[in-house]
Structure formats: structure tokens, C-alpha cells
């Protein structure tokens, strides 16, 4: 796994009702858009953020965890391709998942 140059992480999870991928934003809510995710720049902050979210027993989401991200051309991009794929949807069915919604809204997708 490549080591990111600078420490940058966010908290991701799956939404309880439909299992879709979500990200924790600045106001402590869950968003489907990675661009609105809250970024943390140190290991300590990351761990305490995750701990805080996990210990609230937040019932809107399941299995929260931290992922490494980087800023690519001004947008937030996961470092691992697993997470890139997870955020987009199946690469073999681009008509499904987040990627299809983003495509419909005319936004650009990060390359996989």
C-alpha cells in the first residue's frame, strides 16, 4: 500500500438503511459526497474523531473507519484503489452506484 506523503484522513462508513457509502462532514453529519468530508491532519485527531463517532453508537451508519486521502487537483481522493472503487460503484457497471449519480449531475469523476 503506498504511504501518503502528508497525513490526511477522513471517516467513512455505510449508511444503515441502504448500506451506501457515506463520509463524516464538518458538522458531524453523514454525506454521500466525499468532497464535503471533514479532513483530519494528524493521527491523534483522526483516532479521536473515529472513537467519538463509534462511541456515540450512531444508528444512522455502520462500520465507521478511517481512510487515507490526498488532494488531487483540488479534490479529495482516496489513496487506496479499494476506497476509490468503494466511493464510486462497480467499475463494471458504471450505470450503478455513486458514479452514476455524479455522472448524471455532470460532475467529474476521479480516475480509477
Amino acid at each position, binding site marked *: 500500500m503506498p504511504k501518503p506523503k502528508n497525513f490526511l484522513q477522513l471517516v467513512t462508513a*455505510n449508511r444503515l438503511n441502504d448500506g451506501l457509502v457515506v463520509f463524516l462532514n464538518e458538522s458531524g453529519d453523514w454525506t454521500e459526497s466525499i468532497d464535503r468530508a471533514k479532513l483530519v491532519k494528524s493521527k491523534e485527531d483522526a483516532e479521536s474523531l473515529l472513537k467519538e463517532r463509534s462511541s456515540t453508537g450512531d444508528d444512522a451508519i455502520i462500520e465507521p473507519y478511517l481512510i487515507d486521502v490526498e488532494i488531487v487537483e483540488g479534490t479529495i481522493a482516496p489513496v487506496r484503489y*479499494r476506497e476509490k472503487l468503494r466511493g464510486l460503484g462497480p*467499475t463494471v457497471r458504471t450505470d450503478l452506484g455513486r458514479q452514476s449519480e455524479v455522472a448524471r449531475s455532470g460532475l467529474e469523476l476521479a480516475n480509477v
Partner: protein
Amino acid sequence: MYRYDEFDAAFVRSRVAQFRDQVERRVKGELTEEKFRPLRLMNGLYLQLHAYMLRVAVPYGTMNSRQLRQLAFIADKYDKGYGHFTTRQNIQFNWPKLSDVPDILDHLADVEMHAIQTSGNCIRNVTADHWAGVVDGEVEDPRPVSELLRQWSSAHPEFTFLPRKFKIAVAGAEKDRAAIAFHDIGIKIRRNEQGDPGYEILVGGGMGRTPIVGVTVREWLPKGEILGYIEAIMRVYNLHGRRDNKYKARIKILVLELGKEEFTRQVEEEYARMGETSVQVDPAEIERIENYFVPPHYEQLNDADPVLAAAENDNAGFAPWVAQNVAKHREPGYGIVNVSLKPTGGIPGDATSDQMRVVADLAENFSFDELRVTHEQNLVLPHVKKSDLFEVWKSLVAAGLATANLGLVSDIICCPGLDYCSLATARSIPVAQDISNHFSELERQHEIGELKIKISGCINACGHHHAGHIGILGLEKRGEEFYQVTLGGSGDENAQVGEIIGPGFSRTEVIGAVDTIVDTYVSLRNENETFLEAYRRVGPKPFKEAVYATH
């Protein structure tokens, strides 16, 4: 086909009601995820990469048209219009909402289906030869004993919390189409010297990170003793299985650590100790179950059919499809139709709801209302009159289901991989698609002949790569997808684990490696020698030399 009795129906409904209540409590926040997770898994509901996934059991791969239509309905109403048929003869839906799952389970119960024991450390859906009851040379139909095992293992309290999941497969003929040697328990129906049918019992096969071919612990077991004997095996496993280490918890590791002789001794000792307390199968119950699987009322027909012969002459695509995808039926004038779910460049095992309805209609109109799911991720119409083949083929062509590639290089077994699966280390479907596109010319595929490629997206080996003539395993190396290639694996009666040929390949290199392997085989094969036969004759050396000379 087996029909639920009152107990089955009431049990399944009560489980749905129970799960409905659990989902409600989870959504209200009364149950934590930690508590809920094992409950949803017991009902076949996983969390995948992008969404939930519901795995529905298709016992020994047998269904009727009503059931398949119901799956199509569920795909449309609650999912995204398709389903994925798996190597365990099940179907998976990739996008169900948690709150819809109880309704889905109710719809399944309406057609005598469920998702129980498709997950967790229990005895999973029993699988069997997909040509059961119709193939020539079968000793006995493997489905009655599979059904008996299904009933016995369903919600069996002693086997609900095993050290790990447990898979049983049954073959009814010498030719093994159920990969029994790669199961925790493999059962082969065979005759003893007196000619009586009974069971050969294999134990300790499996794939995953430690691929092992199962060993025979009993050459021949009388039919009535099956449950008692299997129970003895399960008890030895339950007692000594490595609950302390997930990677060593399968029965194969226990058999490996104890050795075949010691393991067999312990099973026989336990079986003898159980004596009369062991479960004896009531012959009347066996007969009751067997009656559900009696052959349909076939017509008395000549094997050669003039309608078929004329259609083969007049339609270019039809004859190759008949030759490749229609297998010999035990009844004269009938054929076993294999419906390929591997169109060129398609996703292996996926079927749209429309395709499901087409196959359901064909099963109802032309195959005594019966169909099968194969562990090779295709469907089967098991009893089609030869005079109906042309009609069936036309419908399949219109639905994109008539690719004449059964057992050929593009008939690839492939797990969902990183496109869906949260455990994956790499994608597997795009590799299958590349290979399928690369060999898209059917004539070339027919020239190459039987060649089974199997692809998994991680070491768990759901795509059976260890048993592939060419096996491909997707891994992650330094943040990139990376593929290890094995050769010479086989899941049939001469089961063998494939050998790794050398360093792996990047996503873009792997197709070249497969191409070189195929070319090497074609250049060195003797007349009529299949890939596997050639590999067994020459070994890995010429393949390695060719692959690594060009990469």
C-alpha cells in the same frame, strides 16, 4: 421437485417475522450493530463495498419457473434489475435496502425459498451435480440425499456455531460436476462390489488460503447410515476444530493436522460410540423425499430428431450451440440445455430480470417446469425435447443467452471481486471480461477446446481459482492490482490444486500471459488432447518458459 411440508413453511415464515422485528429494533436504535450483525448474517444479509448484499439459497441448484420469476420480481422491485448466480448455486442481490429485506424474505417464502444459512459458521446450502437425474451414467440422483441433508442441517442446534462455515456437495456419477473434493464433506454416490448404491465420503477438501483436495474416509457407506456418519464427522470437528484461529478453523486443517488415518479413526470411534443413538434415517422418509425427484413423464421418442437435423442445417449459429451447450440426456429424444451466462465481454453469472423471465418461461414450456443453477455460474434446462431445441434456442438468442461456449475459454467462473466484495484485494470481473473479449471468436474457442479459467478477487477463492485449468488470483501489491496465475488445477473426479507458475502480473499484463499460455498449449498438444491432459503430460516448464520469455 421438493415441496415444503407444513413444518418447513411455518419455520421459514417464523424466521421472516423474527427478522422483521429485529430489523425494526435495529432501525429504531434498540439493537446495536454489534448485536444485529450476526442476526442479519444468519439471514443471508451481508454488507458489501457499496451496499448490502442478500444471498438467497437455491438448494442443490434446483428451481421451478415460479421461483425464478419471483427472483426476477425481487430484482426489479427491490434491487437494480439483476442478480448474480454464484459458485454455490445461489443467487445474490447487490443493492437491497435493509428495511426492504423482511419484505423480500416474505416474497421468497411465498415460493418456498429463503436466505437462511447462506452465511455464518453453519452448514451452508448443500450443492449437487447440476445435471442430477438427467445425465447418462448416473448411479443415483444426488438430490434426494442433498434434500435429506438440507432438512437435517437446517437450524440444527449442534451445528449452528461451528468453528467455521461448512460446505457439503454431492455427486451422483463417476464424473464429478460438483467439485466434491473441494468441499468440507464430499459425497459420491457409488455402488459396492455387490452392486448396492451407497456413499463414498470425502472430508477435508477446500479452497481458500490453504487449498486441499479432500480424502476418502469411507469407501462405501450404506445409504441409511448417512446422517449418523456425517454427524460423527461433525462432532469430531466440533470438538477439535481450531476455534482459536480463523485461518485454521476449517475441517481441512484438522484433517491435515491429525492425518487421514487418525481423523478417520476418531470418526469411526465416535460413530461406533453413538451406536443406536445415532440418527437412523427412516426408510419411509427417504422414500417420501425420493418421490419428489422421480423423473417427469417423458414421451417415448427416437433419439434422432428430423426437426432438429433440419434446423441445424438451415441455421448457421444453431448447430454449434447444440454441439457445445446441449448435453446428452439419459432419455432418447431429449437434451440437457445449458444456458450460458457468459456472453462475450459480459459479467459471469449475472442475469437481468428479463433474462430470468425468459428462462423461467422456457423451463415452464419446454422443461417440465424445472431448471438448475450450476456452480459454474450458468443455468440449465434439464429436460428439453430435441424437437423443441430450435424454439428454445431462438428465445435464448433474443435474450442474449445463447453463447455457444459451455466449457470453453470464455465460460469463466469469476467471483464478484473488488467491484462488489468488501473482502477483495483486486477486481476479478474486468479480467474475465478482457479474456472473454480477447477470445471473442467462437471458432477459435472451439479450436482451443475445453479450458476452464477461474478467477478470484482474493485468497478466499470463491472463484475456485485453485481448481482452474488456468487459475487467476487477484491480489494487491504496493497499492496496485496484481494477479497470480496457476495452472493444472481441476475440480473434477481427478481433483488437483493448480500450481503457481511464477511471479504475478499487472492488470494489463495478465491477458497477455493467458494468451501465451493458450498459444503454448495449442502448439504442443497432441491430437484431441485437452489443455489439462497436455498440462499433465508436459508439466509447467514450457508454459513458464513461454510466459516469462515474453514478459
